[in-house]
C-alpha cells in the first residue's frame, strides 16, 4: 500500500516537474524581455545588447520609446483586428460550406482554402504587391501602400485559421440537434443563431485569436505591403534590429505583454476564459 502511494507520489512529482519545465522553457524568453526592459545600466550598452540580468533597475527605456513605435503598434492592432474580424466573417461561412455542402471537388476546395499557409509569407507579400500594381494598371484600383492593401494581405493568411478551427468542430457536429430545432418550427436563421453558432463558438474564438496573432506578429507580408503611413510594429522592430539593438524595443514589448494580460484578465472577468474555451474550443 505504502509502495503504491509512493509510486503515485513519484509519478505526480515527475509530471509536475515536466509540465513546470515546459512552462519555464516557453515563458523564459518573455520573462527575459520583461526583466531586461527595466535595465538601469549604461544606456550605450543598452543600445548594443540585451542586458540580462540587469545591473540596476530603472524605467529609462520606457521614456526612450519613440512615437513611431506607438504609431506602428496602433497600425498593427488595427490590421490584426481587421484580419480577425473579417477573417471570421469570411471563414465561418466557408467552413460551413465545406462541411455541409455536396459540392463536387470539395476536397480540392478545402485544400485551396488551406493553401495560404503552405506558401512562404514572403512570396505572398511580393505576389500581393504585384497584384495590386496590376489592379491599378488595368482597373485604376490603387491600393498598393494603403491600409486596405496591407490588411488584405494579412487577411489572406488569417482566414485559413478560422476555417480550420471552425471546420474541426463541424466535423464532429451532431446535426440531429439542428434537425430537432427545425422540426420544432425554428427558422433556418434561428436554428443557426440558437443552435449552430453556440456550438461552433469556441472554434470561432480560437480561429479569430490565431488570426489576430498571426497578423500581429507578421513581418514578411508587411515588408512588401507596408508604406510610410502604414508600418506595423514587428516591421519597425525588424528594421531597427538590422542596425542596432535598442532596449526601448524591450520596453514596448513589455507593454504589449502587459496589455495582453490585462485583456485576458478582462475577458476572464466579463465572459470567462473557461467558458470560451470549453467543449474543445481549440478545434
Amino acid at each position, binding site marked *: 500500500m505504502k509502495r503504491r502511494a509512493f509510486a503515485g507520489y513519484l509519478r505526480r512529482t515527475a509530471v509536475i516537474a515536466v509540465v513546470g519545465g515546459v512552462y519555464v522553457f516557453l515563458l523564459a524568453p518573455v520573462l527575459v524581455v520583461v526583466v531586461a526592459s527595466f535595465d538601469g545600466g549604461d544606456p550605450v550598452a543598452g543600445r*548594443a545588447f540585451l542586458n540580462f540580468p540587469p545591473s540596476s533597475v530603472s524605467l529609462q527605456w520606457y521614456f526612450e520609446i519613440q512615437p513611431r513605435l506607438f504609431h506602428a503598434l496602433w497600425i498593427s492592432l488595427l490590421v490584426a483586428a481587421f484580419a480577425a474580424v473579417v477573417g471570421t466573417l469570411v471563414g465561418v461561412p466557408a467552413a460551413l460550406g465545406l462541411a455541409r455542402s455536396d459540392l463536387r471537388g470539395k476536397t480540392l476546395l478545402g485544400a485551396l482554402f488551406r493553401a495560404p499557409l503552405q506558401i512562404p509569407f514572403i512570396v505572398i507579400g511580393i505576389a500581393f504587391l504585384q497584384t495590386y500594381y496590376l489592379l491599378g494598371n488595368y482597373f485604376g484600383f490603387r491600393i498598393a501602400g494603403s491600409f486596405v492593401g496591407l490588411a488584405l494581405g494579412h487577411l489572406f493568411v488569417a482566414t485559413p485559421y478560422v476555417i480550420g478551427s471552425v471546420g474541426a468542430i463541424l466535423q464532429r457536429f451532431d446535426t440531429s440537434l439542428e434537425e430537432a430545432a427545425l422540426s420544432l418550427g425554428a427558422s433556418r436563421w434561428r436554428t443557426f443563431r440558437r443552435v449552430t453558432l453556440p456550438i461552433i463558438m469556441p472554434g470561432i474564438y480560437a480561429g479569430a485569436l490565431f488570426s489576430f496573432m498571426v497578423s500581429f506578429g507578421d513581418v514578411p507580408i508587411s515588408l*512588401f505591403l507596408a508604406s510610410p503611413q502604414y508600418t506595423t510594429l514587428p516591421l519597425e522592430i525588424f528594421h531597427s534590429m*538590422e*542596425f*542596432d539593438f535598442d532596449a526601448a524595443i524591450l520596453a514596448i514589448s513589455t507593454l504589449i505583454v502587459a496589455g495582453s494580460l490585462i485583456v485576458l484578465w478582462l475577458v476572464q472577468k466579463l465572459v470567462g476564459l473557461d467558458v470560451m474555451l470549453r467543449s474543445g474550443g481549440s478545434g
Partner: protein
Amino acid sequence: MTSACLRNLAATLGVIVGVGVFGGANAGRFDGVTLTVGTFGGSWKDRICEHICPKIEAEGGKLEFVTGNPRILLSKLVAARGQAEPPFDVVEIVDSTWPDTLAGGFVEKMDMANLPNVASLDANMYDEYKAANWMTEEGFIFHIDKFKEAGIPRPTRFKDLFDPRLKGKISFPDINVNTALNPIVGFAAEEGGDEHNIDPGLKLIKDLDVFSFWNSGTQITQMFQSGDIWVAIAHAGWGVRLHDAGVPVGMVHPRVKDRVGMGSRGYAGLVKGTTHKAAAEFYINELISEEMQEILHTRNGIVPTNKNVQLAYSSKPKLDASGEPFLLLAPEQIGNLYYMDWTGFSMKDWTSKWNRTVAR
C-alpha cells in the same frame, strides 16, 4: 457700415492680398512635394530625417521613408516595373544590388550640377547614376582579452583565424547578409582566388568550423557579450558599438592581396520615373554633405564618403583597448582598401555555391 469699418475691411483685404502675393514670391522650391526615399529603417532613417527633413520642409516639401534593406527595395522596384509612378523617388543601393539595379533600368541619370557636394567625394564614389553616402570597412572583430588570455597574437589576415584555439569561437555572416560577400572574396584571395573565383574561399569557410552564421548585427553584440564567440566577421561599425558598450574588442583590417582591409559602399540613386527629380537631387546632395556625413559617422559608425570628413576624423580615430584604430579614415587608407570588382556578379550564383559548399 461706418467709414472706420470700411477702412478696417480695406486694410484687412490689403494684408490678405499682400500675404498672398509676397507669400507666393517666397514659396519653397518643393511646395506640395512629398519625396519618398527607400532606405534602411531604425536609427539610420531617424538620423537622416533629423538633418534633412527640416531642410525639405523649409522648402515647402515633405520627406517620407519606405524602409527596407537594399535587396528588399530592389524587389519592390522589380514588382513595380512598368508603373507610371515608382514606389519611391530615391533608392538605397549597395555594391551587390547595383548590377541588377542598373540592368533592370531602375535608376536614371542625375543632373550633376544639382549635386555640388560630389566635389568632396573621391571619383570612385559616384557616377551619373549614384553617389556613395556611406562606406563600411569589412574584416573581423576580435575579443582582445580572450586573445590575450589564450596567447593568440593579433591576427592580420583571414587565414590567421585557422588557429585551433579559435575553433567554434567564430561567427560568420550568412550569405543573405550583405557583409558576407567581401569576406568570401577575402578568404578566396588566401588561396589564389578572387571575386570571379570564390570556390577556394567557400572551401576555407567550410573548414573554419564556425560557432554560427549571423543574420543580424544584434546577434554579434549578443554573442560577444555572452562570451559565445571571440571573433565575428563583420564591419568595423559593430566593433565601435561593442567597444562603446564596454566589450574589449578590436578590429582587424585583413591583408587581401596587396591591399589592407575591404571596402563596401552604399549609394543613393534616383529612381527612374520619379516626378520629384529636383527634390530627390537636393536630398542626395544633402546626404553627402559634411554635416550629414559627420552625423552618420559619429552616431551610426559608418565610414564617411565625404573626403573633408574623412580628413577631419583621420587625425582622431577611435582606438581600441590596445591602441589600434577601429576605422581606417585617411583618404590614402580608404584608397588602399580592397574593392571588389562587381562586373558579372550574380547573387543567385553565389548563393547557390554557398549552399552547395558551406551550408551543406
